[in-house]
């Protein structure tokens, strides 16, 4: 952060840290490009937007509060099934479906947050993984509710705002997912730059110090975990509404693990890391969808090793370093 450009008062400095940078505006404008450049890929684009939202929700707990979760897909799945069931049983209005999904996921998130906030390291990783796996088993057994292996049938999403029909080409789907992503992003951005965001970074940077400055880190964690669960639920609901299907893999361990890879690839703790990581990962997977699964896993493995050793802050971290060096620090 070059000091010479900023005014010297502390308030202005902090304000400056959170201003909108031109590249961010360029990023968001670029998200509209698929409509012109790649109209055949709008379904993929909407999947990317949904996954980006999901990754953003994980970033809030992982990148900002330092909670390693291997079970975040649980909330995604809860959101997806909530919206799906609501639609199946007669109420297919998309926006209220999102609200219902967020609410349900938030409740489960709040309940589990009491446990999550009390543990660290391996116990925490195991607990998050355990909850995810447990929910997966429950969903599998409760076939009468979830449709089991066959997935939920009979979802029909009503027109968005009573007007936009969810067409096969994904025009509405992409616009809808992108709009929701943007709105949630704005909220997350405000949160990160608020005192609460600062407290979360404090927890991530040094959890031991927090009680010593009078901070009740457990309640902070419970709060962000609940918010994160709600956002993951919204992402799941978006998936069920735009694809009009829900299956067990929305809750699977694979989904949780892949999300982690995407977030780390893009760079955790930078708000945009999840978005960038999701985009890169999903475009790559689409391009390489023809190859054998084991080759795909080989390269993911190599990627992970490379990222951890050489680019611990992901793509965005690497770019930030290059940028700083270019500006002649």
């Amino acid at each position: 952060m070059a000091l010479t450009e900023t005014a010297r008062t502390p308030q202005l400095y902090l304000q400056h840290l959170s201003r909108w940078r031109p590249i961010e505006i360029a990023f968001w404008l670029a998200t509209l490009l698929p409509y012109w450049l790649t109209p055949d890929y709008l379904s993929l684009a909407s999947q990317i937007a949904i996954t980006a939202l999901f990754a953003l929700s994980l970033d809030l707990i992982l990148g900002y509060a330092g909670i390693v979760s291997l079970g975040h897909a649980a909330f995604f799945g809860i959101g997806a099934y909530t919206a799906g069931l609501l639609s199946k049983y007669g109420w297919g209005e998309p926006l209220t479906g999102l609200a219902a999904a967020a609410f349900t996921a938030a409740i489960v998130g709040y309940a589990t947050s009491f446990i999550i906030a009390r543990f660290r390291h391996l116990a925490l990783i195991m607990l998050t993984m355990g909850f995810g796996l447990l929910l997966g088993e429950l969903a599998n057994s409760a076939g009468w509710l979830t449709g089991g292996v066959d997935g939920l049938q009979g979802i029909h999403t009503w027109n968005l705002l009573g007007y936009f029909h969810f067409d096969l080409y994904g025009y509405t789907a992409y616009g809808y997912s992108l709009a929701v992503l943007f709105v949630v992003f704005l909220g997350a951005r405000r949160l990160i730059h608020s005192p609460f965001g600062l407290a979360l970074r404090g927890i991530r940077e040094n959890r031991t110090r927090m009680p010593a400055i009078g901070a009740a880190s457990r309640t902070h964690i419970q709060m962000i975990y609940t918010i994160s669960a709600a956002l993951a639920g919204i992402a799941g609901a978006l998936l069920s509404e735009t694809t009009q299907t829900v299956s067990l893999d929305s809750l699977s361990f694979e989904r949780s693990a892949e999300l982690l890879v995407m977030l780390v690839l893009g760079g955790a703790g930078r708000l945009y890391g999840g978005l960038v990581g999701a985009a890169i990962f999903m475009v790559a997977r689409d391009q390489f969808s023809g190859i054998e699964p084991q080759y795909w896993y080989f390269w993911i493995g190599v990627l992970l090793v490379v990222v951890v050793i050489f680019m611990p802050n992901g793509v965005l971290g690497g770019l930030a370093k290059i940028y700083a060096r270019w500006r002649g620090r």
Partner: protein
Amino acid sequence: MEGPLTPALSTRGLAKSFGSLIVARDIELSLPQGARYALIGPNGAGKTTLINLMTGMLAPNAGQIFLGEDDITGLEPQERVRRGLTRTFQINTLFPGLNALEAVTLAVAERRGIARQFWQNVSTYKETIEEAHDILVKLRLGDSCYQATRELPYGRQRLLEIALALATKPKVLLLDEPAAGVPPEESGDIFEAVASLSGDLTLLFIEHDMHVVFRFASHIIVLVGGGIYAEGSPAEIAANPGVREVYLGTRKHD
């Protein structure tokens, strides 16, 4: 209401052991308001353990801790800080990725109870930021407050330790070797900072450097093997042959 004679911090029969290892035995101490007490003793005597017990990071097996007239024995660490008991760490326990301004602002925000506000930008909380900046300026950290903590030289990091503690507006401050590891030419800053602390603040500091102890402390407590071996004025302690043998004789400088 506490009278002027109520000790700022006191313990009764404080004890802690891990299996057969006794790290605190029957500790009775009493710090008058505004006191400058030093806690000395050989390595492993249990000085940091005592601070951990008093601040709630470690649960005692027996005994009580009082902050003024209030029994704080069962309170969580953050609750004790809110009541006015703060400590610094012997090994820098800072926020590496935050800059000094952010770190102290966080501490002030927690104290003011606004740390859970998630809608307004931090920069709109002017008083909080000003208070944080004032603390940093007073400790001569004003010009480096925009640098990430991990980039600060060690001596400045030690000052930041103290700044974070001051942000909590403590009534009693426990300093664990405030100048530990700081080169002699910089440790002067630290002690000037300590010396300039308000007279209303009660201080207990752990220190190995006897010059510092004799210069700043009005009363010395000697801890050996988890128990209080002796306590008294600096002159009394210096003259105590047992203390010399156990501690003073073997080390003069650190």
